[in-house]
């Protein structure tokens, strides 16, 4: 393992601060859609959208859609933070990954 002095550069501190703040934002969204909205299931169930009571819908689909979108948003943000701080990995040699 590489041995390096403990000192962190100001750039690194800034980068890690941003990383931590992004993680906290992501976890806040996660908490809201994983737990908080389902605490209001009775109130939400009074609203019906396309035959779905909203409270049921949120637990069966709505939160899941948010989770998927959240992870991809988080990836994009974290990659930008890493790039700006110059700690990102080099771009892959092979072209973009095949779909």
């Amino acid at each position, binding site marked *: *393992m590489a041995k390096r002095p*403990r000192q962190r550069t100001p750039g690194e501190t800034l980068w890690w601060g941003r990383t931590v703040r992004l993680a906290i934002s992501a976890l806040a969204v996660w908490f809201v859609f994983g737990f908080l909205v389902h605490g209001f299931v009775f109130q939400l169930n009074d609203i019906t959208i396309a*035959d779905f009571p909203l409270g049921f819908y949120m637990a069966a689909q709505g939160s899941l859609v948010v989770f998927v979108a959240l*992870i991809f948003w988080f990836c994009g943000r974290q*990659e930008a933070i890493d790039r700006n701080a110059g700690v*990102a990995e080099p771009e892959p040699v*092979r072209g973009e990954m095949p779909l």
Partner: protein
Amino acid sequence: MRLPSPEDTFLNNLGRIYGTYVGGFVAFVILLAVLEQLGVPDRIIGYLFVFFTLAVYAGIGIVTRTVKVSEYYVAGRQVPAVYNGMATAADWMSGASFVGLAGTLYALGYDGLAYVLGWTGGFVLVAVLVAPYLRKFGAYTVPDFLAARFGGNFARLLGIVVLFACSFTYVVAQIYSTGIIASRFLGISFEIAIYVGLAGILLCSMLGGMRAVTWTQVAQYLVLIIAYMLPVAILSAQKFGLPIAQITYGAVLQEITVLEQQLLAGGLATAETLKPHLAPFTSLDPFNFFALIACLMIGTASLPHLLMRYFTTASVRDARRSVGWSLLFIFLLYVTAPAYAAFAKLEVYQNVIGAGLDALPEWIYTYGRLGLVDICGAHAASVEAVQAACAEVTGNQGVLRLPDLAIDRDVIVIATPEIAGLPYVIAGLVAAGGLAASISTADGLLLALANALSHDVYYRMIDRRAPASRRLLIARLLLLGAAVLAAYVASTRPADILSMVAWAFSLAAAGNFPVLVLGIWWRRCTSAGAIAGIIAGFGVTFYYLVMTQYGGMPEWYGVKNISAAVFGLPVGFAVTILVSLLTPAPSSEVQALIDDIRRPSGDPVMRDRTA
């Protein structure tokens, strides 16, 4: 630029290879459908389905065999994010998710959605808190990371104990459900079917380790998702003219609510026996509902067989992205499961409850004969059996009432093709999907178990100078040993297997989560703190599980033992933090290691000299 190698040809053509594979599979299903119309018996269709899919998985396993250590353990770290997402989805979704989840939602209604939320939301934690950092660290196993971060083999040993506690019962359950599916569709005895399933499992993982498992899991994902989405899409198209059941089942929910009122008004159900499908907190109180979500989510972010899938990507960035792809692929199944439950419930409330005992739908008897549908307390094997059983029940007047009916939860998905009146080939497809789900999860789990033994115990703790060939030989022998032991345990049909699987999440959460998260995000976390935290968190959870299940201990604050990590997690965090603060800060080497893990650029922290 690297030199082109056969490996790169394979990786560069993944889209074409798997596109051809899906086309071939669809053609195969159509061929079987034609054969069925030509009068080929159901049993032959079932055989063809099972053996063709097993042969394909085995073929991939053999083609991708390897003699390199890094390919055996982490697929050479060059799996593209999307494919790793598919492989992870197959790794994650077990036979229980495939056949059992919809049944749970059928039985519990809204409360069952705790499982849907818990098994999906955890991936946010994986992407944000754990996976990219473990990928950067470059370990082969989770205990490997614990050892490097927390000062050596004692932490490694604890990691192995946690890994075994949460993986072994899980793999037994997978082999068990492989046996159930194989026996039902091949018409052979359960004990023999287990070994047929085991052969399929081993052919995928023995020769190629992680590399082979990755590429068979991708193939298995494609089969299982097609098999899961198709029957309910057809059902939806029949009823609404739109094959997107995930959208149309809203109307089904409305019909169910109306029918529930009619059943109550008609005296076919009582307020005690009928749980309204949409009403929250009828089976789980709010505290248990949210506790279960939390334990499943955090358990997701702690299960070693899942986390090790993210060791296989080409970069930290890919590891992160591939968590998103994993969840997207898993999402497809999990948003479909509530639709299955709704369509099945509609069928039961409309055509089964209130029907005369001599005029029940045919599928009731089909599954009654298999012992999966009980009416009036007896297997609903025939009209006579049902009538005889119900004659004994007071108050029954020749009409089926809700309390008279008991449906095994596995029936919901498996019976859907018959409820929709579809040809047998669709039922065979569902069986192939269930088999793919069980086998892929079993492979991931067996690999996690065998790798912990061969890499962590044998290589790291017993013989640090073992050459690559011997390490791989040992890894394969241990894989075989673990598989045979798990199959033996499964063949004894352990009674509590399903509840034990649910425990795996709580055990993993309490044992791994505090130290993984604090080890990455809190540089002050010390070895003594982590060791004490694992012992305390895992210990409390294990004690609660065993004592409430077998020791006759009353529940603490009414918490069901499926959510046991509700106690273990806070204890684990608190003990890790307290002991860390009481012991000297980690050395500058460990601090440098933490810096290295956090920074995406640069080489993996840990390198294997024999790779």
